[in-house]
């Protein structure tokens, strides 16, 4: 008896080891096989792979845009392009590029994160934002509120977020670009309301974060917290993210609330010159970003709920979905991103101090 069962178990061991080892070797074979197959399909031109490192809510936009661009580029030049995507909170993504993620283009939520990459790595010039139209922002957005159907807590404006018993969902400004817009949106609103009184604006924002039960790492993380796990009464988020949630999860479950005033969100794009040049993708990378400004790119941006920078290119039906809203921008109210970042979001900045105060008062 013993010899039979130990024999069977031992054959199991023997069967397991080659299986585990075999998987490795078959993948290796696949890898060496793949380029050969690809080059034979391409004919004369060598295929190019592009890595677009982007922020959280652009997943659906770039999925469609990438296949559209790949088709367009191959028709124009005969070069097949494969575009790889990586998504996450904008701060986290910028950090990854700084740490060595080989992005050919970055399409992030805020200029500051791209500034950081230029500053710390020198992979592209510091005046990158002048290289494309509209401050290198092919599309813009703003910050709105998403509430549950029927708006049970009667949320109409920023003021209502700090009422008793209202739970607010917003991501962490340390890792998410969208979250920084949410924060600055609230701050800008309070400045306007209290006649530019900085102290009152700070108190308002602190009160707002007292209503936040959990800080997600990125915009999408917070959206799933709100819509899927059904936590919180209101989600502060990108307009595009709110419209997408309505489309994906049912317009009957949620409502969008447009506040009296909000912040203009400008997500910029740029080529990471040295990474792209290192594998001969500079030309494709530039064409890729230019294509965002083309009629096709602008139409796709509007289709995926981003406000196109060239409105006349987009489908008027798509444009109807964007509410009229009074907007201020970061430059006007906060003196630009470097200043806003240093004052509010860097280590020891106002956001950190507020968080500490909230934690110690609990």
């Amino acid at each position, binding site marked *: 008896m013993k010899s039979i069962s*130990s024999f069977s*178990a*031992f054959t*199991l*061991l023997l069967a*397991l*080891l080659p299986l*585990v*080892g*075999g*998987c*490795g070797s078959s*993948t290796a074979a*696949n890898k060496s096989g793949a380029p050969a197959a690809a080059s034979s399909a391409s004919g004369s031109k060598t295929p190019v792979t592009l*890595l677009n490192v982007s922020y*959280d809510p652009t*997943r*659906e936009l770039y999925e469609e845009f990438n296949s559209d661009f790949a088709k367009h580029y191959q028709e124009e030049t005969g070069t097949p392009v494969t575009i*790889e*995507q*990586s*998504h*996450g909170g904008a701060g986290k993504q910028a950090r*990854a590029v*700084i*740490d*060595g*993620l*080989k992005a050919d283009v970055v399409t992030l939520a805020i200029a500051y994160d791209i500034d950081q990459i230029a500053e*710390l*790595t020198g992979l592209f010039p510091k005046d990158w934002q002048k290289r494309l139209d509209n401050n290198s922002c092919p599309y813009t957005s703003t910050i709105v509120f998403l509430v549950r159907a029927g708006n049970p807590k009667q949320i109409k404006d920023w003021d209502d977020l700090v009422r008793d018993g209202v739970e607010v969902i917003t991501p962490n400004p340390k890792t998410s670009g969208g979250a920084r817009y949410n924060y600055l949106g609230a701050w800008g609103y309070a400045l306007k309301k209290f006649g530019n009184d900085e102290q009152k604006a700070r108190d308002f924002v602190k009160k707002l974060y007292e209503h936040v039960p959990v800080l997600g790492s990125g915009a*999408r*993380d917070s959206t*799933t917290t709100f819509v*899927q796990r059904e936590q919180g009464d209101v989600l502060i988020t990108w307009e595009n993210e709110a419209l997408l949630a309505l489309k*994906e*999860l049912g317009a009957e479950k949620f409502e969008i609330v447009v506040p009296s005033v909000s912040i203009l969100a400008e997500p910029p794009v740029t080529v990471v010159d040295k990474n792209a040049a290192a594998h001969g993708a500079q030309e494709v990378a530039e064409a890729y970003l230019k294509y965002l400004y083309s009629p096709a790119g602008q139409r796709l941006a509007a289709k995926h709920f981003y406000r196109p920078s060239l409105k006349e290119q987009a489908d008027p039906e798509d444009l109807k979905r964007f509410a009229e809203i009074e907007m201020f921008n970061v430059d006007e109210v906060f003196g630009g991103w470097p200043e806003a970042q240093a004052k509010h979001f860097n280590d020891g900045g106002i956001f950190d101090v507020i968080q500490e105060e909230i934690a110690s008062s609990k």
Partner: protein
Amino acid sequence: MDAPALPVTLESPESWQVAGPRLRTATEESTWVRWLLVGSTLLFLTLVLFVPLAAIFAEALRKGWEAYFASFDNANFWAAVRLTFLATGISVPANLIFGVAASWAIAKFDFRGKSLLITLIDLPFAVSPVVSGLIYVLLFGMTGWLGPWLATNDIQIIFAVPGIVLATIFVTFPFVARELIPLMQEQGSEEEQAAISLGANGWQTFFRVTLPNVKWALLYGVILSTARAMGEFGAVSVVSGHIRGKTNTLPLHIEVLYNEYNFVAAFAVASLLTLLALVTLVLKTTLEWRIQRDLEEASRSV
């Protein structure tokens, strides 16, 4: 007080036994206490284990089998499967060799720094997986210690397959060694000494005496580290870079699907990982029984 209340008398054990049932023994609780304990345990298990487990399959099959299988018809999914198997296929054999060598040294020999080695082996258990990932970013990242040198030599470690393999090795590091050390220590080194005194060389002793003695524990450790390697999220997430179809493992692929409102596919892939875990569990239970027997044999022979 009546002195002879206890019927225990030294001269007649029979009378003690007869009188026994009138006393409640310390280990016997009344029926309702027993039901309460069993019931609350079952309730707890149902809530934290069975319901979530069932929920995975319920969510995965919410739109029927067709939608379930459609979730696997996706290039990014298969890329994630390949990467997961690759990382597991490298990390498990690596830890197998290391684990056997380390536990052999620890159990059969005395040397300086032995307790330090044991502590180091346990380190991945103590460190948060996210920190394990960050260690590699600090080491191999562009702003890290070795980053600039790696870049000039065009070697990519983090945000590529090598980084994912390294992170997986790190988190599965203790499993094999931790299984082998107690068994080997229990077994002692008498059999090896006997083999050597009969003229066996080192390798012969190892392959004919040491290894057969621990084969079940070894297999157990291998299975545990395989399961962990396939399911690891935190450490791999930090070093992955999240490039679709390239550096996403199965757990990371699940996160991507979930975040794209693709709940059926997310739970379908999760159900695959769950099935793998259940298979692991069955293998593990079978092996536990065998190891127990080996241990008993070892202690009997001492």
